[in-house]
């Protein structure tokens, strides 16, 4: 009987060795560990054996059974491993095929630049004040110290409406008067963003509508040195910590003294290139101390209050930053342009 079991074991293990697929393994299991398997029969027959043989045969039969079970488990594990390896090998993908993006929306580049500018000014205590786009001649010019027939009016060609007193604002500056009249005599720190209009032909360099963002600070002890320090701080935040700036004299009717802020051209580092028109500098911002007449028109006594104002064009800045040479892209809304931002 012992021999029988030895043989049984030997044969079963030999067969198991030959198994290479799950199906065969299942069959093997039925044959050798199933209900009618030989080992089972031997175990069942133990009680029919003479009592002195029972323990030895029973032990041996159990031993063989558990041996086969172990071998089966090991084989099953091995086969599963092989199977996994094979299916992994079959599941290899072409990782270079493009991903399947969900539709993605973006914010218009002008809005993006405007947000960035507004965020920086907000940190310096300048809050957004929105002002109207259709204005009176008085707010757009008269109250800003552009008297009728003044040469400064040449600098800005306006769109007039059929009411001769009503124009499309040529700059965000009329908002200065509006916010001052609303807040006087409180000190002010605001930025005034929004669309402006000029009567021009639409070309790669000039547009009939463009955004501006203008800043205004009015207080008791605001100086030109503060203007310089504040704008330089902005330039560093916006263009980078190491940006070189330059203040130079300029002219706007509603500020005096007036200054232009240039930054060193980031394309050529000041060597001169087409972007900076060979000057090495980029004009970024117009600014100045609020003209006493404008303060007065806003309801502030210029002998007590002083202030500064500044303005810049988000489209122009966006163009400089990204090397865009045609301003018409902004309102043409070709998705091939907009989707690059």
């Amino acid at each position: 009987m012992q021999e029988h079991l030895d043989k049984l074991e030997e044969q079963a293990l030999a067969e198991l060795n030959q198994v290479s697929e799950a199906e065969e393994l299942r069959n093997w299991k039925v044959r050798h560990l199933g209900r009618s398997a030989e080992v089972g029969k031997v175990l069942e027959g133990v009680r029919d054996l003479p009592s002195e043989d029972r323990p030895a045969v029973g032990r041996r039969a159990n031993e063989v059974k558990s041996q086969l079970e172990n071998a089966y488990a090991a084989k099953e594990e091995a086969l599963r491993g092989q199977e996994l390896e094979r299916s992994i090998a079959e599941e290899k993908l072409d990782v270079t095929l493009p991903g399947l993006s969900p539709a993605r929306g973006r914010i218009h580049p002008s809005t993006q630049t405007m947000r960035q500018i507004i965020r920086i000014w907000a940190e310096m205590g300048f809050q957004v004040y929105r002002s109207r786009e259709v204005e009176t001649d008085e707010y757009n010019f008269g109250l800003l110290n552009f008297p009728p027939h003044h040469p400064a009016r040449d600098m800005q060609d306006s769109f007039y409406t059929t009411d001769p007193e009503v124009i499309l604002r040529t700059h965000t500056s009329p908002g200065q008067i509006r916010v001052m009249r609303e807040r006087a005599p409180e000190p002010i720190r605001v930025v005034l963003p929004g669309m402006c209009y000029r009567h021009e032909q639409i070309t790669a360099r000039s547009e009939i509508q463009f955004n501006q963002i203008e800043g205004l600070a009015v207080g008791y002890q605001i100086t030109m040195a503060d203007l310089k320090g504040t704008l330089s701080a902005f330039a560093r935040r916006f263009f980078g910590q190491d940006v070189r700036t330059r203040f130079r004299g300029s002219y706007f009717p509603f500020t005096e003294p007036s200054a232009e802020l240039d930054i060193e051209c980031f394309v050529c580092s000041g060597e001169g290139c087409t972007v900076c028109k060979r000057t090495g500098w980029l004009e970024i911002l117009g600014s100045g101390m609020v003209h006493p007449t404008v303060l007065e028109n806003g309801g502030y006594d210029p002998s007590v209050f002083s202030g500064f104002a500044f303005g810049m064009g988000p489209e122009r800045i966006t163009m400089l930053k990204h090397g865009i040479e045609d301003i018409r892209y902004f309102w043409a809304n070709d998705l091939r342009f907009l989707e690059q931002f």
Partner: protein
Amino acid sequence: MKVPLSWLRDFVDIEVSIEELARKLTLAGLEVEEIRYVGLPIAHAETKVTGLAWDPEKIVVGEILEVMPHPNADRLVLTRLNDGKQEHTVLTGAPNLLGLKDSGPLETPIKVAYAKEGSQIYDGKQAGWELMTLKPVKIRGVDSSSMACSEKELGISDDHSGIIVLDDDAQPGTPLTDYMGDVVLDIDMLPNIARNANILGVARETAAQLGVPLKEPPYDVSWEGPSVDGQVSLDIQEPELNPRFVLGLIEDVNISPSPFWVQRRLHLAGMRPINNVVDTTNYVMLEIGQPLHAFDYDVLVERARGGSPTIITRLPEPGETIATLDGVERQLDDFTILVADTAGALSIGGVMGGGESEVGDSTKRVLLEGAGWDFINIRKTVAAQKLSSEAAYRFERGVHPAMAERGVRRGLEMMGELTGGSVNEGLIDKYPRPPVAPTVEITQSDIQRWLGIELELTEAAAMLERLEFSTEIDRSRLRVSPPDHRLDIGAGVVGKADVMEELARLYGYDRIPETQIADRIPPQYSNPRLEAGSQLRDLLASMGLQEVVTYRLTSPAREAKALASQGTEDRDYIRLANPIGEDRIVLRQDLLASVLEVVARNLRIRERVAVFEIGPVFLPIKGEQLPEESDRLAIAMRGPLNPLTWQGREPSKMDFYDMTGVVDGVLAGLHVGNIQYEPAAHATFHPGQCARILVDGRTLGITGVVHPLVAERFESPDTAIVAAEMDLGALFEWIPERYPVRPVPAFPPVLEDLAFVVDQKTPSERLRILIHETGEPLVVGVSVFDLYQGEQVGQGKKSLAFSIVYQADDRTLTDEEVATVRGKIVNRLEKELGAKLRDF
């Protein structure tokens, strides 16, 4: 304004480099936009640099000793030319030498600009500025490797009509760059410094910036002729418009071309030389800023019937006209100031002369006018007549009447020199309205308060004196008065600002320190609309929509394109008085029309477009001057829901429900609850696929499928465009300041799907609301997940399947509880809507 360095040096010694000077002037508000080198060596500058340096070895003064005929060509000559070291035979085709070709050795050699082989010069024959190098060539058998140059070839001007004939003082062999090498600064003259739009003005700024003295030109005249008294009289009828008028007379003038140095300076400054009299008036104008006018005196005498002429400045007679030098017969406005004599108008004062009394080749006596004019009146005239001139450019920016006398004196002296004429003794000068110079008072604390710098009053005074202000310090006050060449300094606090600007420019913008505002931050205000607008943009972008920004200017016809069944006649638009084109004549009222244009444009390049714009429309208000600027949101989507991919699955096209889904998403994102849609009619939309968007019964906007006729006009005839428009003013009112957040339930929900068969016309929303209401509080969520129409439910019916979430906060629901609620729902739907629970 073009400023030749050599001319500037007449009035100021410049010890710094030209590039450094350009930098200083730029910082001081005289922006040097370009440095053009005309001979001098080129260096790096912080501005645009152009031009040509003349090689001192190769381009020198030469003298032509003899002009000889060319053996093979009539239109060419050979010249015997001395370059200071040796003689050459040089070929030229210059017309100004042709006439001398048979006259033998010249009595006075002709001085020329001689370029040797290897010189780099401009190609005179090419349009524009092309550089070339002189190489040995033969022209018609004659060696021709060097040449006598024209102004164009040396970059002085675009004149290539003949070779330059230098003045006699030029020494052969002298490097030309040493003799007349120059640099031209092109300065952008802003209105506040337009008084400096002349060489003297720039010299004064230069002197002040460099801290060196200004060498003001002498205004002496070498009187030679008899007294001017009695030869002409003056009658100023409008002293407010013509505060001063000065006349001088010069006899025996010989009209001829000006000497080369005058021509060269005029050319470098951008003016064309004409003759010695006209050139003198232009030269003086460029030099000191006072325009002059030269009359042919004998013409005036003739017009006065042989008597002594009277110059009258006056307003026009009704219907009076004048023929100006540009050949135009002009109707005059009642404010146009005229210079006239007893026979009629001679010129428009300060703007342009008339043809008749103009100086010509045969002129013998010149009456020279220098006047002061009211600058606003000149501006009005220029605008009304659409006529400008070099003189008007200056007068309309304000020329101090004190300059009139200086101009005439300088003009007479120079004209005498250039024409060989003799100047009659004295001037006829009427000055009825001398401007009163304001006195401006400033203190040290003003300077500190304004500019943020510590400056002693004595220092401030010294600075202003450099610009010729008169100054007086009275203890802690500095009183200053502007010089009599400027009109731009105001009185009172405006004058203070004007003086501060001068101090800032003189102190140096680059030296002003950088400080931070010492004031406390002013009161801050909440700005919910700005934040909501920003959030709205982000929400829309997060749902796959691209923000666009369109022109606010459009036309009624363009907006009508977005309306299927009506026009825009009933819209009262803000109209432009001066549009740039027919398609942009009004301010928009229909944001969606603009956004649909964007869709149409992009459909040329792609199938799928999903865009939105946020911006104002402009609605006139009765009785108000200014319109309401009402913010709107417009959304338009068209094409596949998702971009096409290589996987080839055909995505579904966006329809009505994709649109309302976006609207729902936006409103949910803003925590606006209680949204409803009700069928609506709107000329832009499909009559059966259009809904009003309501919140708590109030209209927020409109949405739906764009009317097929409209879609076709916007390039989408076969595929639906879906769109929405909302009034942001109304929307933002519904955004709650706070919204509650519920705890996450601790007990499991029961999920159940129920399908009902109802009439096809029953809106699904009614079922959804009924289920929700009936099931409250245990039903916490109801949503449609299937719609079926067809045989299985019968004609005129539809099946709507809902998934329902039952949930209690304090316990796990039992099947019995859920069954009870379900029973109530089924009963209620059956009773109210005739809905039948559907078995699967």
